[in-house]
């Protein structure tokens, strides 16, 4: 990694007086000198700072959350009444495809990546991730991938084969619009983001923990993120291969899924679900991590059974690989496969159950403070339990052949992903907002936000259990009165309730956005330790300085920060406060490190990522464009590889006369 030395703020370092030759570096390298802006758009565009990248991940994800949410609302409006006329068949198919794609690949995954990026280095006491430029590259890939996938809306229609994109329906004959091409290529690009991010975070966690922080003293959030990164590391290549094959089938006449040429369409399903099922845990585990941080803080108790939670997370990670075919119980795998995967699926319910038990027991005997973050965390525990239990009913394969591809499944995974993943993410928003922005989200609005979301979510997805059990299949652009059943409480009624619920949910999420705006305009600064928190990320300023910690703390406890603030009375075993958060921080600042090495910004991640959409568009429309994009990428790749590992002073014009501006911007 390119590392330049920058003076720490507060320390007096003599002004940089390089005995430089009479060179004007900006002339030397022209546009190729390294970027150094610390403010303005350039400081974001070329940054390699994990916190800035984390925020950019978050902002991007939030944008796509809104996009995906609007798609969902359109779907519900179409299905509110029989023979809906809001969307036509084609548009509806695009809508549900893109809703799932957006929510999975462009909201939950990047949002988790955002949290991970921001908080994993902080939680392990590191100053940045292991590969800052790769980190930046990952973000730009995600953005490029998201743009490519959604570009199809404007260029002849989005992908319309469902997010599972089963072959051969996704082939060129059955999906003749370009939407699927944009989808496959966009997701391949976004997949690069996941893969690079995974490698980066794994190396960061394994190598860059603060002294004293053994693996079993690592915060659970970091643990869960680590498990997720391993899942990503193995899952993403699988889907990438599948997408690659599909791209070749569509754009270059390959026959991987062409039955007449001897192919088996089930190959796609296996590839997709070998990725797809671990993907479920990729989506949910970060939220498990978040509430495993939130629940102890607001229960004023450590996480109950920390090793159990950690190992159950790891166990989920392992067993998650052996259950993919439970998505294919109806595909005709043969009884032996079905039986094996049925059992494996039941097995994975056990570690999941362990987590719920531990969260409940964490709260048991605690001193519960019902902040919005805590409300969302408790909401997750309950709602995810429902989703998990309906999941167990699916593990019974014969039963699954009745309920799969009905609304019962839709209800199940929305309880898991909305009630689980999204509630965890919202819990994270409210919990970490003061850390990220130095301002607290409004708790009053937060409460409204929570309750509207809980009500809306249950109204939307609760009735879907009934719809599914009563035999309404999913992915239908219309449902017909003829099969809705009799009586007042027929499927029409429940469809209407679900649609109304989706609107309530929309209002709830809208309140969050309003809350963000209100908070941003408020002038009130958050206190240093608003929640009486327990882990390392709170042992720095709000928001953290560019170099995170003035001095790297030595870790002795799982909840290091808490134990620096509180001591146990040896006789009564009660906790008493011995230091305030400000005291702890001041202590760190007193021992500030003299020389802090921070990575230099770089153009190459952005340039490299920018080449990819051109390759994608080129594959779709014209190969020369792809070649041009490839050349851009090749150039960026080598430019990156050949970029001096240590940015020499001559590489950029000093940002200010005394060279202090870089380090002092956050001071």
């Amino acid at each position, binding site marked *: 990694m390119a590392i330049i030395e920058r003076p720490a703020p507060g320390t007096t370092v003599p002004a940089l007086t390089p005995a430089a030759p009479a060179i004007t570096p900006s002339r030397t390298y022209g546009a190729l000198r390294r970027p150094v802006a610390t403010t303005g758009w350039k400081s974001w565009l070329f940054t390699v700072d994990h916190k800035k990248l984390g925020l950019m991940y978050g902002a991007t994800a939030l944008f796509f959350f809104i996009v995906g949410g609007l798609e969902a609302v359109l779907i519900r409006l179409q299905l509110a009444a029989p023979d809906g006329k809001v969307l036509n068949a*084609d548009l509806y198919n695009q809508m549900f495809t893109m809703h799932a794609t957006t929510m999975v690949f462009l909201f939950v995954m990047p949002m988790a990546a955002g949290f991970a990026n921001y908080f994993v280095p902080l939680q392990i006491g590191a100053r940045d991730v292991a590969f800052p430029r790769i980190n930046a590259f990952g973000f730009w890939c995600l953005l490029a991938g998201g743009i490519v996938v959604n570009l199809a809306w404007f260029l002849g229609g989005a992908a319309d084969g469902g997010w599972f994109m089963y072959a051969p329906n996704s082939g060129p004959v059955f999906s003749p619009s370009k939407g699927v091409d944009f989808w496959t290529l966009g997701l391949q690009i976004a997949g690069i983001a996941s893969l690079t991010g995974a490698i980066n975070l794994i190396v960061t966690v394994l190598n860059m923990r603060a002294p004293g922080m053994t693996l079993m003293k690592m915060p659970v959030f970091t643990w869960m993120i680590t498990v997720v990164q391993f899942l990503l590391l193995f899952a993403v290549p699988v889907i990438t291969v599948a997408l690659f094959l599909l791209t070749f089938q569509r754009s270059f006449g390959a026959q991987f899924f062409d039955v007449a040429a001897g192919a088996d369409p089930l190959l796609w399903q296996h590839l997709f679900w070998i990725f797809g099922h671990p993907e479920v845990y990729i989506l949910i585990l970060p939220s498990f991590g978040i509430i495993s941080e939130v629940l102890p803080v607001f229960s004023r108790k450590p996480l109950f059974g920390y090793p159990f939670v950690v190992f159950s997370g790891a166990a989920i990670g392992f067993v998650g690989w052996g259950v993919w075919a439970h998505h294919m119980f109806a595909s005709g795998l043969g009884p032996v496969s079905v039986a094996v995967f049925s059992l494996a699926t039941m097995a994975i319910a056990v570690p999941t159950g362990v987590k719920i038990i531990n969260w409940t027991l964490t709260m048991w005997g605690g001193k519960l403070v019902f902040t919005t973050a805590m409300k969302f965390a408790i909401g997750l525990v309950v709602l995810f339990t429902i989703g998990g239990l309906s999941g167990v009913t699916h593990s019974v394969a014969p039963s699954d052949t009745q309920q799969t591809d*009905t609304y019962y499944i839709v209800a199940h995974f929305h*309880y898991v992903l909305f009630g689980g993943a999204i509630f965890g993410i919202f819990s994270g928003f409210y919990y970490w907002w003061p850390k990220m922005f130095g301002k607290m989200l409004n708790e009053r609005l937060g409460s409204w936000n929570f309750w509207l979301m809980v009500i809306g979510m249950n109204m939307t997805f609760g009735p879907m259990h009934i719809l599914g059990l009563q035999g309404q299949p999913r992915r239908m652009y219309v449902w017909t009165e003829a*099969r809705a059943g009799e009586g007042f409480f027929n499927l029409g009624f429940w469809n209407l309730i679900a649609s109304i619920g989706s609107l309530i949910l929309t209002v709830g999420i809208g309140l969050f956005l309003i809350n963000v705006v209100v908070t941003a305009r408020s002038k009130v600064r958050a206190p240093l330790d608003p929640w009486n928190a327990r882990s390392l990320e709170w042992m720095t300023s709000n928001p953290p300085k560019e170099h995170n910690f003035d001095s790297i703390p030595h870790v002795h406890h799982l909840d290091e920060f808490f134990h620096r603030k509180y001591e146990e009375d040896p006789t009564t075993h009660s906790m008493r406060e011995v230091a305030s958060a400000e005291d702890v921080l001041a202590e760190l600042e007193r021992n500030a490190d003299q020389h802090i090495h921070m990575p230099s910004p770089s153009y190459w991640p952005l340039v490299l990522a920018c080449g990819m959409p051109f390759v994608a568009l080129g594959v779709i429309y014209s190969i020369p464009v792809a070649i041009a994009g490839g050349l851009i990428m090749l150039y960026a790749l080598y430019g990156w590889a050949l970029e001096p590992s240590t940015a020499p002073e001559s590489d950029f014009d000093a940002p200010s006369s005394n060279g202090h501006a870089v380090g002092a911007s956050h001071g």
Partner: protein
Amino acid sequence: MNHRSSNETPAVGRLSVARVKARRFGQCALVATGAIALLGSCATNAPQDTWQPKGPNAKMIDDLQQPVFAVAGIIGIIVSVAVAYVIWRYKDRGQPIPEQTHGKPALEITLTVIPALILAVVGVFTFRVIFDLARTDDTQLVINVTGQQWWWEYDYPVQNEWGITQPIISSGQLVMPAGTKVLLRETSRDVIHSYWIPALNGKRDAVPGRIHTLRLEADEPGIYAGQCTEFCGLSHANMRMEAVALSKEDFARWIANQQAAYQAPAEGTLAKEGEAVFLNQCVRCHQVDGLKRPDGTLAIAAPDENVWSGAAPNLTKLMTRNTFAGAMFDLLRDACRDDVWKADSAEFGVKYLAGVDEACLNVNDLRAWLRNAPEVKPMYANPALLTETNGKYRGMPNLGLSESDIDKLVAYLLTLK
């Protein structure tokens, strides 16, 4: 719960009162945990209800899923209550910061083992049902089922024991004898579809290039609704099917009628003119077995030249079916339809075998379909957009028939029974 369902072998039988209650409880308990407290109004007799088995295969599934749902519901309630209790009990009322306990391994192991044991029990029963449902060695009747966008084709291979001496081909409605172990050999001509008659069995995907089997058996004569459940493109929502169970005698009658020779309409009738229109327009794709051209040669449809899947529904005995266009529309008008659907099992066979006559014909939908098929059912039939399929349709194109042609065609189609 477990013990009760495990004692019952999956067999044909009427629902006992106790089992009805158990099922209601399981279903509603789950819904209750979904925060919807409308306990009494869950079941509304939807035609595709997955909880109302009408045959032994579906019943096997049902017997398995009821206890599972019940257990799941109970656990859900326990967790919810526990959380509610914790919220109420340990709310911050100014109590001191509690002791920083890190867990009780014994408790946790116990709480891990209990669900594991429950699941192990469930697993044993699941195993048995999986293998029972996969049996193919006790088949009494084989029917080939082929899915395509967006309708199902049924063909009955030659099986002399059922009087099938020449292949029968049909679509829209699967006609089968009640109380008989029927095995579907499913495949597909284009994309993956999924065959699902909830009252008779779970679903099974129809995958191109593969032959998948699905056991069906209906206890009683009747019509059982189903729907394609694997997303199969534009008109997936409109790809429905109906399984018609007839008594064995009625089924034999049906077989005989299906194999009966083609009866050309009488000269000079409107239907005869309709036959000419059919020969002119429809026979390019739709086969009517025995139909002859004016020159005396057999009219052989060549859908492979016009339709991507290479097949269009065979219309030989169209009016013996109650539906058309992939079961999207009924051939019977509403009153007549209800008459058939709601007939009790004893009368059902007679009513069904009566077929469709002019009085009962759902003329509006049929005419709309003939007028412009892609308008009433979304299909890939826009000639400008067919480059990927070498100009071949997926679905039926707009034929641009005149109203008088449609009159003639309807008259002709009414003779196909």
